[in-house]
């Protein structure tokens, strides 16, 4: 409600200084207009004496002044209440609905806030203090709760880039976990669709991932992981894709050279594997025990075959 537009009391009137004792005259429950104003009077009778007219004019002036005072006070209270309501509404958060109850309790006693005279509040200052303490406590609770909910809702997000065959349209990446695909959609910024997966390695695992080909380089699959696995990784070598965070997250400018980089890495990894195989073969052949055992095994196998 735009109160400022509907409640403009500035009528360019010659107002005098107000007596601020007005709120004491307001009723306890609701504000009601209790003046006799509103009755339209037309002074068309000319036969009244000037003194009577002056007297009546003075009465109307005082009534005018009184109405202005009331109007100003009610407007002030209205704006204050409006601000209070706005503050309360801005405080509202979907995650903390259960704490709303105590705040409403405070709301049930708006006279405290409004400053209107109320026998109950005047006579029970200890109760008011108690309510105030409760209100403060709830506020503290609210202020403490909010960051917790915020941090809780803030899921860990990491991005991993995988090389992909351009002919493969399955949008699956081998990160060691089991994933259940639950959706796919086409995005505006990318010609290839985006697939949505949920970790099915553990029943209550909250981790989700989105997989989409890179718009810059379609030979790269970009997997975005959200959340943290609530279970151990499939095995040590495969590791936790989401926990690789820093190492696996590649910035966007690297995407331009991503294909070349990944190809180099692949070559290096292949060379390393070949080297390891060669080293293992040479160490085994150099081991005389192993050679003898192997020879015995082969001989035994040949003997068995010749018998059958």
């Amino acid at each position, binding site marked *: 409600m735009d109160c400022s537009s509907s409640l403009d009391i500035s009528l360019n009137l010659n107002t005098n200084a107000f007596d601020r004792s007005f709120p004491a005259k307001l009723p306890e429950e609701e504000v009601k207009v209790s*003046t006799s104003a509103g009755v339209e009077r037309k002074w068309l009778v000319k036969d009244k004496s000037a003194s009577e007219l002056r007297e009546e004019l003075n009465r109307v002036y005082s009534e005018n002044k009184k109405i202005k005072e009331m109007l100003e006070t009610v407007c002030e209270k*209205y704006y204050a209440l409006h601000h209070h309501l706005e503050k309360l509404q801005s405080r509202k958060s979907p995650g903390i609905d259960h704490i709303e109850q105590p705040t409403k309790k405070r709301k049930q006693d708006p006279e405290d806030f409004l400053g209107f005279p109320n026998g109950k509040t005047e006579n029970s200052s200890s109760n008011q203090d108690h309510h105030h303490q409760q209100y403060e406590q709830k506020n503290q609770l609210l202020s403490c709760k909010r960051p917790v909910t915020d941090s809780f809702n803030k899921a860990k997000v990491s991005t991993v880039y995988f090389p992909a065959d351009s002919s493969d349209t399955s949008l699956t990446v081998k990160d060691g976990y089991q994933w259940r695909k639950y959706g796919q959609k086409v995005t505006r910024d990318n010609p290839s669709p985006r697939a949505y997966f949920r970790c099915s390695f553990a029943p209550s695992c909250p981790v989700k991932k989105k997989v989409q080909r890179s718009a810059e380089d379609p030979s790269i699959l970009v997997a975005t992981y959200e959340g943290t696995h609530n279970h151990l990784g499939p095995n040590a070598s495969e590791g936790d894709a989401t926990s690789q965070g820093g190492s696996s997250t590649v910035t966007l400018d690297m995407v331009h050279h991503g294909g070349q980089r990944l190809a180099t890495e692949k070559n290096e990894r292949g060379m390393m594997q070949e080297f390891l195989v060669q080293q293992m073969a040479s160490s085994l052949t150099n081991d005389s025990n192993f050679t003898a055992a192997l020879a015995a095994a082969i001989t035994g196998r040949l003997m068995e075959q010749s018998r059958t």
Partner: protein
Amino acid sequence: STTSALVDELNRVSAENKKLSEMLTLTCENYNVLRKQLM
């Protein structure tokens, strides 16, 4: 002339009072609506 001036002034102030009273009624109504909303 003094009497007519007084009558004119009385009519003006009365009309102003009426306008102010209407505004006050409206403000009170809005206020009470807001108050009920808070409760």
